């Protein structure tokens, strides 16, 4: 790898730009591709490579592709550097403390939204982005995408519900809500009155977390991280487990 390419790659990652590094496994030649961005139509040299890069980027799966090159193909390794997964936690409650730390370890960029400043204090959440806003505005600021997990922890309808109403209209791959079966049933009832359907309800993991009997905040955080990991890595199993 050339040093200037490495520098550019590091700059792209710092800027959270989606980038694919293509390396010819025979020659060692490398180049950076940006298949998520509009490209110059006059540059028609490596469309096949760019197409392959777009595919692996969307699948978030690095791998070797064979690119036709005259009579023979060449083997190119496509290394996907997607920006980090993201997690928005609604409610700077006790569980949010271990959960946010574990989420960072698992590779997430974490933000916590809570308008209650005594909860969302810097002392309680060192190094974590804190959004001092009502949860619905917080969701807007965070702008969830399909690589985002959302967790609501307040089990207070006036905080959780406005967030959920926004979140259910986003592409977030995981939505989970803390609260008992009874709390969750009431929550769905309220969301039904807001016009949400069974299909929307099916996206919500409630009560939150895999059923491993967690008691302490850290143990509950483990069950939440486990459930989010399952939704990310084995989405089909996650659905049938409902």
């Amino acid at each position, binding site marked *: *790898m*050339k*040093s200037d390419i*490495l*520098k550019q*790659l*590091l700059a792209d*990652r710092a800027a959270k730009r989606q980038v694919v590094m293509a*390396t010819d*496994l025979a*020659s*060692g030649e490398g180049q950076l591709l940006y298949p998520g961005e509009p490209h110059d139509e006059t540059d028609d040299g490596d469309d096949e490579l760019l197409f392959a890069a777009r595919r692996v980027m969307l699948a978030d*799966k*690095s*791998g*070797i592709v064979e690119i036709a090159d005259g009579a023979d193909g060449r083997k190119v*390794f496509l*290394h*996907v550097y997607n920006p*980090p997964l993201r997690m928005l936690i609604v409610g700077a409650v006790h569980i949010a403390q271990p959960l946010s730390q574990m989420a*960072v*370890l698992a*590779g*997430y*960029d*974490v*933000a916590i939204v809570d308008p209650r400043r005594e909860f969302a204090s810097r002392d309680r959440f060192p*190094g*974590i*982005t804190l959004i001092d806003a009502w949860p619905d505005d917080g969701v807007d600021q965070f702008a969830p995408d399909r690589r985002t997990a959302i967790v609501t922890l307040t089990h207070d309808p006036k905080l959780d519900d406005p967030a959920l109403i926004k979140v259910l209209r986003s592409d977030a791959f995981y939505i989970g809500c803390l609260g008992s079966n009874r709390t969750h049933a009431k929550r769905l009832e309220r969301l039904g009155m807001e016009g949400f359907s069974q299909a929307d309800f099916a996206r919500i993991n409630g009560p939150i977390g895999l059923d491993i009997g967690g008691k302490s905040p850290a143990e509950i955080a483990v069950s939440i991280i486990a459930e989010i990991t399952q939704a990310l890595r084995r989405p089909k199993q996650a659905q049938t487990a409902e």
Partner: protein
Amino acid sequence: MNEQNVDHEAVLEKAAEWKAAGRGVALATVVATWGSSPRPVGSQLVVEEGGDFVGSVSGGCIEGAVVTEARQTIQDGQTRLIDYGISDETAWQVGLACGGKCEVFIEPLV
């Protein structure tokens, strides 16, 4: 927006840092896996000329062998594409005890 560093090992950052310090550097990347390989495709390890390394390409099974190859790459400037296969009793030092296979690409940072 965040003070967090999600890449614990910061392999690429370390590669740039060592290079900037004037050291010979090679980068090893898992480019393919078969079976129960411990680290996914894209896992990386950076090696400097003295043999210090950061990152991983397996669960510790083949790092030693990869570092040796990477130091060769730093010396001769040649890329290497190496298969590490299923281990048996005689070759377990450089095999994967899990029975998996992986292919590692080693390149110099120039």
